């Protein structure tokens, strides 16, 4: 398959993720959408890596996976903690830092 096909998939994934992050109100869904964005990035990295015959892209893919795991752990912890104190995971209700 040509490289642009992978890139198109990656783009689609990224936009779906971005839309999820910006539009959904449930914190858990937002976190999952962030994972989609990261997956899109990983896919683009791998596609270019293969197209250019350069291994650096593969290495970065691993970095992204480690980062995604860490982000999920911290993000979920925050969501749980917010839910415990506020009894909600709806981001519209979490606005205590309003100026």
């Amino acid at each position, binding site marked *: 398959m040509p490289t642009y096909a992978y890139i198109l998939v990656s783009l689609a994934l990224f936009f779906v993720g*971005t839309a999820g*992050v*910006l*539009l959904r*109100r449930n914190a858990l869904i*937002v976190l999952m959408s962030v994972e989609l964005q990261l997956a899109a990035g990983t896919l683009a990295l791998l596609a270019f890596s293969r197209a250019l015959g350069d291994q650096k892209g593969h290495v970065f893919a691993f970095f992204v996976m480690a980062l995604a795991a860490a982000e999920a752990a911290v993000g979920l912890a925050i969501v749980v903690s917010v839910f415990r104190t506020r009894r909600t995971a709806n*981001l*519209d209700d*979490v*606005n*205590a*830092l*309003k*100026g």
Partner: protein
Amino acid sequence: MLSHLRTIPLLPLLGAAYLILVGRHHSRRAVHHIACMAVGAALVVSADAFFFGLPALVKEGGLTDVVGTWFASGDLRVDLALRMDALSGLMCLVVTLVGTLIHIYSTGYMAHDKDYARFFAYLNLFCGAMLLLVLGDNLPVMFIGWEGVGLCSYLLIGFWYGETANASAGKKAFITNRVGDLGFLIGMFLLFRAAGTLDIPALVDTARGGGAVLTATLWWGQPVAFWAALFLFFGAAGKSAQIPLYVWLPDAMAGPTPVSALIHAATMVTAGVYMVARLGAMYLLAPAALAIVAGVGALTALFAAVIALGQNDFKKILAYSTISQLGFMFVGVGTGNFAGGIFHLFTHAFFKAGLFLCAGSVMHALGGSGDITRMGGLAGKLPWTTWVFRVCWLAICGVPIFSGFFSKDAIVAGAFATEVFGPRLAWVSPTVGAGLLAAALGTAFYMSRLYYLVFTGECRADTRGHLHESPIEMVGPLVVFGLGAFLAGMAGLPPAVGGSRADLIGHWLAPAVGPPLEVSSGFEWRMMVASTVIALAGIGLARLFFGGGAREPARRFVAALPRLVAVVRSKFFVDEIYQWLVVRPLRGLSRGLFVVVDRILIDELLVGGWTFLVDTIGRFLRLVQVGDVQRYLAIFAMGLAALVYVMARPAAPSELKIRIEGRSAVVELGDREATSGKLDYGFDFDGDGREDRSGPSPNATWSYTRPGRYRLRIRVTDPQWSTARTIERTIDIR
């Protein structure tokens, strides 16, 4: 040790530092041992240098000790340098000797004071600063000492700061001195600008050599030397309590009596006289300045003597007496009779310190009061004090064989005999001489009045049961000062009395201040007779008025001229006049500045304005802070998109220049982007859709074969981002 002059001021300074830091943890004994040793050691070192090191070198300018370069900037280089020549050596000896004696006296006088260590720390600091002033080889070092003694004066006048009057007296002294210091500074600047140096020996050498730089006209037809001398004398008038800046000295008596003796009689207040004598050669270049010095001195001598007639406080009388005697000294140096002025400084240090210490002893015995109308008949109760007072009294009155007689006579005779003023100002000389004779009569009268009211007649004090002579540590220094007051005159016998070599001080000082003034023998004798008659007349008149307490003639005099007496008693209202002319306008100005500059400009506009601005901006910016993380993310995403667009936007030339040269078109594309060298350009000059030139160069030239209107198309491609842009222009070729 001989060349290490630095130890002389350093010893008392170290003593002061130690006592200030840890003195209060020590016992009284330890404190005064440290303090007295520090000054005593300085006395030993100075005496050693003066008697054994200096005589061999006195012709070559004395001993010097350069500690190091203090600062250097452009043409100005100031060393931290000390010099002991004939003049500064003598002064150094006087300061350390009087300082040591008064330290010892203070151990008795201040024995019951709670701030014992602080007192001695300040005294030591004073001695250190005074020695720096005396030994300083250039004007800035001298100025450090000058300010240092002013600071100590302030600290010691306000030593008993618990009472507001004492604290205000300290402030008055300090501020008045600061006014004078301004003159000192300006004088220094003028000298530096004219002569390019601040070293005293260099300045003196310049002046002695005629000093074209100093005689050049500066302002109003007067030479540099005149203005520098005048401004420096203004500084001297502040420090040495001369008209118009004398008002602080009487108030300075608020300090402990040993302080009055050391600082406000024997040493610090003579600094002005000393400074004028050191720069004497420069003053000689400006007879008009000398005339001002002598005139102010004579006027002060007379004025202060008159005020002293009407005072009833023991120490106030002595304070006005000091002002008056300083006036004598200024007449001495102001008539070019530098040795005479310094000689009087020397004898005055003894008899005035003695008088003040007697005052301290009397007030100590009476429990602190200084009102002479409530004293009397103390002669039998305080035998040592009385005898020392008698000697010092006769000395200051100018009774023959006592020290003051010779020194005062040297000044008065010099004032009449001097020729420094030149033909145009010749009238100054007899005028100041006559003024001094009148002042001498006043001096004899008020000092005798003081003596008769305090020591003779009935005792009018309430504490007659407790009267006691002071302890040995107070009486000892008293006796030494008494001996000094009696004998110090032997150091400067006039040639008419002791032969040509008798004027020890005059000959000793000659290398530093020039040869002593020549006075003919016959005139000298006539002067001495006249002074003796004046002194005895003053004493006799005072005896008639006050012998054994205020008598009938005194009462009748007061009844006959009540207005005059009231004016003299209130010191001619000088303080009140200054209050109206200077203090109140200044206070009003300060209040106005405070309201306009501080309250309105700084507080309201600058401080309040900024906070108002920040507050207002904040009120609007807080609306952006909605607290919704997704809205932040949306803004973040838009920002990121904008950033990506900017970074990755199609490459474009930042500038496009097209020049027509005859039949040729020259295209130059400016390219200041980071992508320089990575772009690909294509140029279609004739609009036929085919690129005539292409490649990485942003410049191209094309020659047309025919004139006409052409369409020019330029393509810019960025191969890395696969972006391209086309620019079109129409050109006319003629």
